[in-house]
């Protein structure tokens, strides 16, 4: 990645990461966030992750890739099961890699 673009990105990322981490800690104690805001925020993690996940397994070069040859899509199902059963990042990622390799050999 070219250096100027990289620097801009890092500075931007640092600012937007630092502020939500520090501000409540430094200012709260006296004030609480409005209930609706807290509720909205509580949905963000699940929403972000789902929004990232769907295109990463269903799109290829900008168009839908619904096919038995889509290894990621097929591997998604057993991986989801491992995630649900273990709730462990380590087991899910290693399991996912094994499923992916098996499926790409089989199909």
């Amino acid at each position, binding site marked *: *990645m070219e250096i100027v673009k990289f620097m*801009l*990105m*890092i500075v*931007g*990322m*640092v600012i*937007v*990461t*630092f502020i*939500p*981490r*520090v*501000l*409540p*800690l*430094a200012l*709260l*104690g006296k004030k*609480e*966030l409005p209930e*609706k805001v*807290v509720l*909205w*925020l*509580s*949905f*963000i*993690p*699940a*929403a*972000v*992750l*789902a*929004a*990232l*996940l*769907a*295109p*990463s*397994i*269903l*799109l290829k070069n900008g168009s*839908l890739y619904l096919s038995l040859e889509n*290894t*990621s899509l097929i*591997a*998604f199902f057993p*991986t*989801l099961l491992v*995630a649900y059963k273990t*709730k462990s*990042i380590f087991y*899910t*990622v*290693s*399991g*996912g*890699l094994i499923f992916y390799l098996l499926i*790409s050999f089989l199909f």
Partner: protein
Amino acid sequence: MQQREEKIVNKKKLTARLNDPSLKSGVKDALPIILGYLPIGIAYGMLAVNKGLTPLQTTAMSIFVFAGSAQLVSIEMIAAGAAVAAIVVMTFLVNLRHLLLSASLSLHLRNLPLYYYPFLGFLITDESFAVAMSKIESQKNKQRYFLGLGFTAYLGWVFSSAVGAFLTEFIDLGSGGALDFVLPAMFVVLLVMQISSRSEIIVAVFSAFASLFFALTINGSWNIILATVLAAFLGVYIDGNS
């Protein structure tokens, strides 16, 4: 002579501080976090170098940003050729949850000198928060406990991403293949860990479809941001009506 004595006194003060039992138990409690960071950090390092960052840039991102999921997301977006603005907005959204973590930690870290907060805040992660929540109550010096915990975990994150990044320089893994599935697999488990209610399932499913829809209709990775914001509003709406 006097200067030397002063030095000795200062040294003793420092050792006393480093021997602080709260600091020490924080460091100790960070070890399982580091074990968890190792595979993710190494995977992040490998992916980042594979998708076009240098090992130094990859490590620098871990040093300055210190936010695993946001870093992985940014790598995915860099590879997709996203604009810097889109990457920054996305990072903001992914890390908005820190507002919540920071707000609940503030209950335990009250009335400290102001210069403490940037350091304590920088060290907030999902993992350090989870450990602190179950252990911080019993600590005598809560800020030192959290510093020990957070900083040790931080070193673990920087170290493991550097290992992944610099290893990739020597071992060419090539792109494509199973490595492409590391991120989706990680999103799957993080998502499953996030979901604890029916409305969260609805939000996630809606967000997934919205993200696909926007990806097919709008250029430049804005699909994720749009889908996330809309889906979170849907969640508020559902919860408000039930």
